[in-house]
Structures are given as C-alpha cells and as structure tokens.
C-alpha cells in the first residue's frame, strides 16, 4: 500500500481518548465543576494546586488527557455529523473542523501546561 490510510491512527487516538476521558474526567468534573463551586468541599489552596500541576508527571498525564480526549471528541463528533445530519458530502469541511479543533486545542494545552510556574 502506498497511500496509507490514517483511519487506524485516528481510531487509536479515539480509543485511547475514550479510556482516559472515562477514567479521569468524571472525577475532575465532579470536583471542579460541582463540589467546589457549590461549596460541598473546601477548595484546595492555590499552593497545593501549583505543586500538583508543577509536577512533570501530572503535567504529562494532563497533556495526554487533553490531547487524546480532544481527538476522541474529533473522531466521534465527525461521525455524528456524518450520520446524524447526513452531511457526509461535506466530508472535508467536517474533517478540517473536527481534527483542526483537536490540534489547536492540543497546542494550547502544551502552551498552558508548559507555562505553569
């Protein structure tokens, strides 16, 4: 095969993202999205968060979480648009939008995580 299909790669990213997001996102969202804002739990100190975020290992995990989850999103949403709205003929546009968003998001994530003091 000369022109190698990208589908396997995209699917691997999608799957890995599926696993990571299923493992990590519910608890993160529960804490930062609900428990803290609604005052169920006292917010952790800023210093602690900096410490956690500053750890290279956490940084790496967070980066992978962002990258893979975004590709997970891109892949699934692309098919949802294909099937749900029956606009497969807009194939290229959809791909550009979905995977483009995932790439941009990942770059932003790198930038932000790199700049944690």
């Amino acid at each position, binding site marked *: 095969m000369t022109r190698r299909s990208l589908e396997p790669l995209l699917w691997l990213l999608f799957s890995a*993202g*599926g*696993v990571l*997001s*299923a*493992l*990590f*996102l*519910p*608890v*993160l*969202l*529960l*804490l*930062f*999205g*609900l428990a*803290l*804002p*609604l005052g169920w*739990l006292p*917010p*952790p100190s*800023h210093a*602690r*968060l*900096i410490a*956690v*975020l500053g750890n290279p290992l*956490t940084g790496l995990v*967070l980066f992978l*979480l*962002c990258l893979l*989850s*975004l590709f*997970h*999103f891109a*892949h*699934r*949403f692309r*098919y*949802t648009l294909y*099937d*749900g*709205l*029956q606009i497969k003929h807009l194939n290229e546009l959809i791909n550009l939008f979905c995977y483009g*968003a995932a790439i941009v*998001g990942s770059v*932003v*994530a790198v930038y*932000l*995580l790199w*700049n*944690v*003091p």
Partner: protein
Amino acid sequence: MNEQPKYTDFHPRWFRRRMSTYWWLKRWSYVMFILRELSSVFIAWSIVFLLLLTRAVSQGQEGYEQFLAWSKNPVVVGLNVISLLFVGFHAVTWFNLAPKAMVVRLRGRRVPALWIAGSNYAAWALVSALVAWLILGG
C-alpha cells in the same frame, strides 16, 4: 464473480427508501446511541474547562480565585452538571462495551465479559480516588 448477469445491478422500479433526517428518533436504542456520541462534545467542553482552570492557577492566587468565582455562575454550573451526566454516560457505556473489542483468553477459555467490565470499573474507582486524594490532600 466477474461474470454475473449485469442487467440486474440496477432496476428503475425498485423502491428505495430514504432514511429520514430524524432516523435516530425512530428507536430507543438509536436515541441512546446519539446521546452517547454527543457525549464527545461535553468531553471537549470538560477539557476546555480544565485548561481554563490551569491557566487561572498559573496566573497566581488572584486568577485562581476569579476562576472559583466564575465557576459558581449558574450557567457554568448548569453546563457542568449536564457535562457530568454525559461524561458519566460515556464512561459507563465505554466500560461496558470494552469487552466486545477485547477478547482475553486464559488457558484457552474466553474470559467472561463481566470480568473485563468489572476490572474496568475497579480501575475507574482507583483512578478517581487517586485524583481526589491528589487534589484535596490526605
């Protein structure tokens, strides 16, 4: 089969039904499917939310407090409640379906799907506990 009689390939009188744009409303399982697929949007939002948090924390104590205040905004809370539901739905469907793609064999016998799903849930609980401990402190 390269010698099939060709003229049967197309027939003007066949009636071809078109799928309606709302096909996914036709059956309960299709609705669940679409909801499952839409969970991806909320996953994306969760990531955005977390990145905003990261940025806020990097900007120092003040930024962090601003973020905490912003996250109390009812709209944001509402969005997060819905996201949590979807992300939870994603997690449950994902862990339940994983055994389909993974066939694990131990001594020639296929490991029952329930075990695989079970170990997925165990991993989920472990990760959640670890994350909570990291953030909230022991």
